[in-house]
């Protein structure tokens, strides 16, 4: 810094201090106007007609100009720079970048995820100017970390280092999360371990079992439901003596799903006394029919309560005993009813359906079919035209599932729609058309947000049928027309995603 610059800065600071106190209390001192400013001070002060305030203003204006003219950049000899590493993958095309900007501005998470998947699939990365937008969106919508990292390239990782809200550093391993994470992170890590290697996951839980609180034990034990098998049986049987009621509830819930467990064996022993299918003669013995008798004898009650079944009702419309019976039935492999009655699954279902008092137990049989993964019973229940069980949908084989969805969209549309929103594949065209028809009648329930969230599941082919879909009542006509435009726009954006990536 030159002497002149030093003098100017000193004079400026002195003038600011003078102005702070006021010229009534302080006057600019000649001592601080040295070097090239000495003459300036003399010229201003020479004029005796000028009042002290104006002298301060004159000096300030002149020194400000000296200061501006003397401003120089700061010269540094060594400055550490942090440059982003070079990229090895190509950038996405400009059309794809335009679509990405559009989608982020639209705040559509579903399409954004689709765009990112397409980008990752084609092994290209986001152009740098869109990274802040993308990282903000990733933070706001909690987008899959691995996906954002894959399409953000090295620049995104580098950039995330300058904003603590953008967490792009590699995530801790499952092992580290299991050992050191929050209960939520540990549960997520254990779930992943359980899916990949059930035995190791169980052993990890066993190893830390005694160190956990009852609440945490109950929460983590529930995860064994994933890939539950007879290999878990010895440990679960041992846990029946756990001191915590919460833990015991989970233990029995799991044991009721293992056919080899003592609980399920005991249920099968008690079953004839609780649920009985017998032949009843009709028309003076000329014909007969199967009738159902369900009751909970007093001596059986304690045996059921000892297996974690609640004494009080857990279900609306069920009395205490009925609720216990319901839970009891969910713990019996459906195959048992065939063996004990000598009837087919379809016939047994028909007997339940025929009894207005007992058909309410069929959902318990459906729950048992799901728990014991009984494909023949799942199919039989799906073929029962008298009732619809949406909970079967994820467990049916693909062909049966499609038919069951189409059947359900008429009788239980809301449940079917809820189930298929969890799909990972694009909806079948026929199903999508039926969903459109149903939602057209309820555009306030299935509002634009519904289609924004699920646009990735809607096939392009619905674009052709959309104009023909109309609202069923005139009150929702305007809303549905506006919804159709929304759907068309979303489809068009979705199409833009594929087209922009295919243009490369």
């Amino acid at each position: 810094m030159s002497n002149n610059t030093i003098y100017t800065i000193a004079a400026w600071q002195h003038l600011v201090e003078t102005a702070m106190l006021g010229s009534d209390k302080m006057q600019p001192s000649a001592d601080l106007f040295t070097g090239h400013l000495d003459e300036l001070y003399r010229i201003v002060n020479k004029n005796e007609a000028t009042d002290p305030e104006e002298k301060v203003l004159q000096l300030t204006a002149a020194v400000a100009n000296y200061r501006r003219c003397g401003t120089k950049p700061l010269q540094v000899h060594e400055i550490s720079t942090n440059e982003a590493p070079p990229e090895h993958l190509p950038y996405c095309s400009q059309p794809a970048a335009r679509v990405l900007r559009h989608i982020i501005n639209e705040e559509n998470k579903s399409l954004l995820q689709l765009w990112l998947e397409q980008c990752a699939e084609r092994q290209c990365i986001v152009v740098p100017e869109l990274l802040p937008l993308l990282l903000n969106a990733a933070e706001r919508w909690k987008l899959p970390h691995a996906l954002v990292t894959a399409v953000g390239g090295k620049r995104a990782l580098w950039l995330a280092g300058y904003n603590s809200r953008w967490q792009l550093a590699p995530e801790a391993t499952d092992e580290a999360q299991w050992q050191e994470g929050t209960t939520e992170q540990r549960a997520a890590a254990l779930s992943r371990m359980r899916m990949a290697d059930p035995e190791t996951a169980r052993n990890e839980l066993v190893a830390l079992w005694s160190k956990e609180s009852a609440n945490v034990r109950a929460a983590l034990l529930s995860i064994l439901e994933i890939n539950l098998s007879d290999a878990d049986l010895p440990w679960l049987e041992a846990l029946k003596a756990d001191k915590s009621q919460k833990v015991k509830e989970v233990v029995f819930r799991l044991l009721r799903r293992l056919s080899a467990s003592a609980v399920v064996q005991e249920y099968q022993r008690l079953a004839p006394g609780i649920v009985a299918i017998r032949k009843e003669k009709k028309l003076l013995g000329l014909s007969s029919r199967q009738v159902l008798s369900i009751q909970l004898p007093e001596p059986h009650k304690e045996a059921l309560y000892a297996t974690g079944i609640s004494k009080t009702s857990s279900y609306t419309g069920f009395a205490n005993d009925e609720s216990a019976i319901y839970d009891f039935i969910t713990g019996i492999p459906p195959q048992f009813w065939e063996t004990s009655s000598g009837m087919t699954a379809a016939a047994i279902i028909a007997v339940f359906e025929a009894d207005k008092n007992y058909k309410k137990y069929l959902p318990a049989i459906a729950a048992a079919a799901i728990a014991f993964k009984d494909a023949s019973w799942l199919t039989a229940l799906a073929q029962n035209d008298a009732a619809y069980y949406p909970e079967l949908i994820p467990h049916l084989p693909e062909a049966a599932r499609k038919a069951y969805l189409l059947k359900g969209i008429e009788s239980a549309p809301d449940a079917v729609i809820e189930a298929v929103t969890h799909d990972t594949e694009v909806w079948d065209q026929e199903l999508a058309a039926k969903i459109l028809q149903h939602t057209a009648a309820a555009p306030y329930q299935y509002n634009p947000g519904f289609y924004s969230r699920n646009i990735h599941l809607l096939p392009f082919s619905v674009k052709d049928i959309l104009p023909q879909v109309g609202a069923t009542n005139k009150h929702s006509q305007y809303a549905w027309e506006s919804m159709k435009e929304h759907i068309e726009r979303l489809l068009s954006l979705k199409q833009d995603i594929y087209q922009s990536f295919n243009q490369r």
Partner: protein
Amino acid sequence: MALAPDASSAKAGRDLANPARWESRCADEGALWGACKGSGSKPYQAQIDTGNIAFKCSCPSRKFPCKHGLGLMLLYARQPDSFTKEARPQWVSDWLDKRTEREEKKSGKKEKPVHTAAQAKRADARQRGVEDGIAELLLWMKDIVRNGILSMPEKKQSFFKDMAGRMVDAKAPGLAGMVKELGGISYYKEGWQSVFMDQLSALYLVATGFLNRDKLPAALKEDILSLTGFTQSKEKLLEKPGITDHWLVLGKQVSEDEQLTTERYWLYGARSGHLALVLQFGFYRQGFNFSWSPGMVVDAHLIFFDSAAPLRALVRDQNPVNAHIPYTALESWAQIAMQETALYRVLPVATERPYILRQIKPVRYKDCWWLCDQEQAIVPLKEDFARLHLLLAVTGGHATDMAVLGCENNFEPLGVWASGKYISLA
């Protein structure tokens, strides 16, 4: 979408970029027009002058361009084939004819008989009125200096507003604006005292400069008159020669003060190397003649206002063009300091200006962000620069050619050249 006045308009415009929303969509070589279904019984008639990018719509929106204009333009950009080619209807040709007429009037307005004596009398009266106002302003400033500026943070806004109002009454709106700026200083920030004295001294220079205007060089006198609030005659300006060039829009700033919207465009001329500032004013965001976005190249004829260091310009004839333009950049911050020094020598009340600098990179130094040139000279990045992460994203911390805006030691990047294109940081 860069033309959208705000995010909600951009979103609404995108919603309308859907053929289903338009009852008709037409285009010819100079215009787009269409009828958009709205909530009223009649559709809104939207039209766009594609030659000089201007919008008009029959909707009641006060935003400009409105969502219908944006939607129509975006739809055309995406699906030009969905537009039919038809003869212009009356409402479109009327509007375009009026625009052409207005342009012609601007470029060659017929001379009206001038009553020189009356004009001189009015000008004299105004100047006397401004002088009277300045006398009061100087007293007000001296009171501040006498009593000390430490009490400024406690002053009510009326302290500044009243004096600004007095300057408006004195027909010195430029001085009124400078007084208002004193009231707008962030008094809670450290170092406000220096900022206040800086602005007070500029106000003093303009005010006393006006009183001594006849002793000033002609060009500087024009600057002082402009800063006081005297407008230069557009008619006279348009008679002067200008510069025809391909102008790169380096940046766009929009500010609003009550109903008045001001658009500031910072331009760089490819052939001339000139930098320019073009201002547009609108009430309720209406009444703008053109709409440019940063990074756009405009083939335009600019006429510069009289000034000791010409920067502000009027636009006569402009057409957006699709072109990449070459540019000449300064090599270092030291060169900018030299240019600034030369500028203050002729124009001591100069404000921020754009510069193009070669190979600048953002760096961290002493816990702050700086802009570093090739000679390891650094200048602090403007404290409230909102696009730091975008700057980092596009540069990756590497040196790039950069357009900056500022003065003295306070600069913000407007855009950078990366991968062969100009990327705006606005």
